[in-house]
């Protein structure tokens, strides 16, 4: 075990001192732990660590291979960027929650068995829910509860699948699910796809993320869906259903993004869309497709966090989040604009930005697998991605009609964090080889061909033409959009009505019967019981109590309160113990 330090330990044990550290030391500490974690992950050797037996089950705390290392690398880098972004916060609670969240995500990524996976899976749900609750206010707390409820339900479904799987195979080791897809596999798949925000199980994401704190949303955008992508890639590569779910997802997020007025909710819908590429890649399941999914997850975490940081900076400075209330900030926040745009170019897959070298790998894999429809759907979603994150959002947030808002650049640590993410977005786009070397399979893909560049630019620039021509139709409106959370938000109200009206009446009828018929019988039985109690049980209890009281009185007399007496008694006791040991024991 000495040659392997589990990065989860670093984060979870590392969270303990946070509340006690203040000032510059506290800040340095917050950055030290993620930095150490990056080093630990980069120097990690593939292998199995921490195998054990618990209640007859094989446990494997850490299974390190190339797939887990890719995700762990970007998770730890993201943890560092996220901590830099949150450095100005003085309340320790959010830092602690973020550490536990990151630690749990890493726990899932290295989990070699389902029990370990489930434990950290739930840890992520609770730690991340705190980041929503921490925002405070009625809306955030309500959204936080919905978020938690959905994830707990998903966790129960997952646990059900794990138990069925364990009963059927006798093994709980986590790996590719082979053979026929049975009930167990479908339950596990449902649990995983819920966290990946695959429609119709997507609404928790777009409901909760925009309500989280400015810094919390940055962490949330990175970890939950991408751990789900990881477990899907591990357990379900080549599952046909995922190809179609992924393609639908990619378009679903884009369609909703057209309607959205809340800046971070628009970005959240683009998480759904982007994760669609990864889910489709995993469904295709070829080496190139899984490589594409993993590399796209890597790039996505960085550019999506950058976009969330940009929108967060605007909310932090102006206190506004609706596009209808924003505009004209480019004069006062030019650096934020520029950094945000790097993220926007990266997500839109412009040449020399990270999305260009990762997203295209998924699309190319779909093409090689002769899936023309998937290629067309994903390409259309790319157009929509640039339309919203690259054009609509920045236009209405930073340019557009000047709302004369008082604004300034955000605190320096926020800008630094955004700068770090931006540098990585460009670095990956210009030098994709180091990322390609990290991927689970050897990469035989060349993103920079003439056709690929001109086709991408054609797609993107003519999307921009559509935007310019139909700008008026895109004007944000003061509305919210109904998504599948309708079923538990409105549905819950109908359920409450059902509980209050018909069910309550039924309950009253039942209780009337019991009052007239059952109660007299119960009263009689209770009286008899009371008699037995007083005569029999109480007498015994009182007797015992009296003797204890007597013993207590004797003990009280022994207590003199003089220290020397106690010391004396201890020495006597010690000597007695030694005598007993020396004589009787041997």
């Amino acid at each position, binding site marked *: 075990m000495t040659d392997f330090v589990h990065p989860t330990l670093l984060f979870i044990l590392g969270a303990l001192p946070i509340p006690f550290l203040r000032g510059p030391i506290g800040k340095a500490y917050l950055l030290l732990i993620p930095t150490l974690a990056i080093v630990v992950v980069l120097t990690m050797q593939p292998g199995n660590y921490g195998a054990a037996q618990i209640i007859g089950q094989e446990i494997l705390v850490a299974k390190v291979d190339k797939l887990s290392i890719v995700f762990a690398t970007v998770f730890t880098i993201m943890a560092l960027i996220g901590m830099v972004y949150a450095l100005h916060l003085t309340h320790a609670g959010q830092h602690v929650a973020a550490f536990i969240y990151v630690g749990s995500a890493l726990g899932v990524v290295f989990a070699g068995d389902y029990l370990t996976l489930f434990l950290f899976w739930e840890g992520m749900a609770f730690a991340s829910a705190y980041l929503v609750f921490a925002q405070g206010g009625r809306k955030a707390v309500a959204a936080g509860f919905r978020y938690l409820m959905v994830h707990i339900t998903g966790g129960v479904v997952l646990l059900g699948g794990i138990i069925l799987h364990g009963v059927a195979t006798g093994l709980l080791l986590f790996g590719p699910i082979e053979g026929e897809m049975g009930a167990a596999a479908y339950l596990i798949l449902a649990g995983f796809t819920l966290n990946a925000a695959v429609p119709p199980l997507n609404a928790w994401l777009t409901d909760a993320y925009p309500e989280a704190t400015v810094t919390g949303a940055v962490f949330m955008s990175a970890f939950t869906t991408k751990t789900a992508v990881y477990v899907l890639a591990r357990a379900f590569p080549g599952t046909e259903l995922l190809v179609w779910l992924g393609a639908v997802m990619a378009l679903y997020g884009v369609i909703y993004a057209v309607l959205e007025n809340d800046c971070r909710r628009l970005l959240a819908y683009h998480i759904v869309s982007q994760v669609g590429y990864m889910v489709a890649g995993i469904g295709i399941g070829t080496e190139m497709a899984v490589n594409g999914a993993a590399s796209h997850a890597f790039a996505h975490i960085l550019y999506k966090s950058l976009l969330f940081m940009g929108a967060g900076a605007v909310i932090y400075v102006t206190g506004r989040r609706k596009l209808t209330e924003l505009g004209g900030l480019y004069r006062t926040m030019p650096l934020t604009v*520029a950094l945000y745009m790097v993220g926007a170019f990266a997500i839109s897959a412009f040449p020399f930005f990270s999305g260009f070298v990762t997203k295209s790998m998924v699309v190319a894999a779909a093409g090689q697998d002769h899936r023309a429809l998937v290629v067309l759907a994903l390409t259309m979603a790319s157009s929509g991605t640039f339309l919203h994150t690259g054009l609509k959002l920045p236009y209405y947030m930073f*340019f557009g009609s000047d709302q004369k808002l008082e604004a300034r650049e955000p605190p320096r640590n926020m800008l630094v964090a955004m700068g770090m993410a931006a540098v990585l977005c460009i670095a990956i786009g210009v030098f994709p080889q180091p990322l390609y070397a990290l991927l689970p399979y050897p990469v035989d893909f060349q993103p920079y061909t003439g056709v690929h560049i001109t086709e991408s630019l054609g797609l993107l620039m003519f999307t921009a033409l559509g935007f310019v021509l139909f700008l008026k139709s895109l004007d944000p409106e003061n509305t919210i959009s*109904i998504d599948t959370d309708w079923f538990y938000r409105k549905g819950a109200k109908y359920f409450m009505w059902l509980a209050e009206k018909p069910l309550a009446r039924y309950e009253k009828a039942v209780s009337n019967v019991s009052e007239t018929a059952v109660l007299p019988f119960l009263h009689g039985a209770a009286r008899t019981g009371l008699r037995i109690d007083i005569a029999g049980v109480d007498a015994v209890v009182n007797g015992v109590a009296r003797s204890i009281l007597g013993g207590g009185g004797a003990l009280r007399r022994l207590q003199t309160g003089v220290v020397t007496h106690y010391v004396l008694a201890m020495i006597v006791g010690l000597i007695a113990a030694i005598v007993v040991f020396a004589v009787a024991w041997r």
Partner: protein
Amino acid sequence: MIERVVDFFGDERYASQRRRLFYLVLVLVVIADFLVPREHAEYLWDRLPGWSAVYGFGSCVLLIFVSKFLGHQGGIMRREDYYD
């Protein structure tokens, strides 16, 4: 430097320059798409120069109008106090 670039994209003064630059880029992209060598074309559209431009524009327009249709006529967009 960054401020000047951002200013160029925001300030009303540069509106006509911006437009000209934008159309120039569009034309250049299409010309480049015609000139670029195409070795292996998997699908029909891979052989058509300018296809991606048409598809990008079409997708953009389709997404805008289908989404807005679903939002307004399909009843997806609701007043902000819908859930209260």
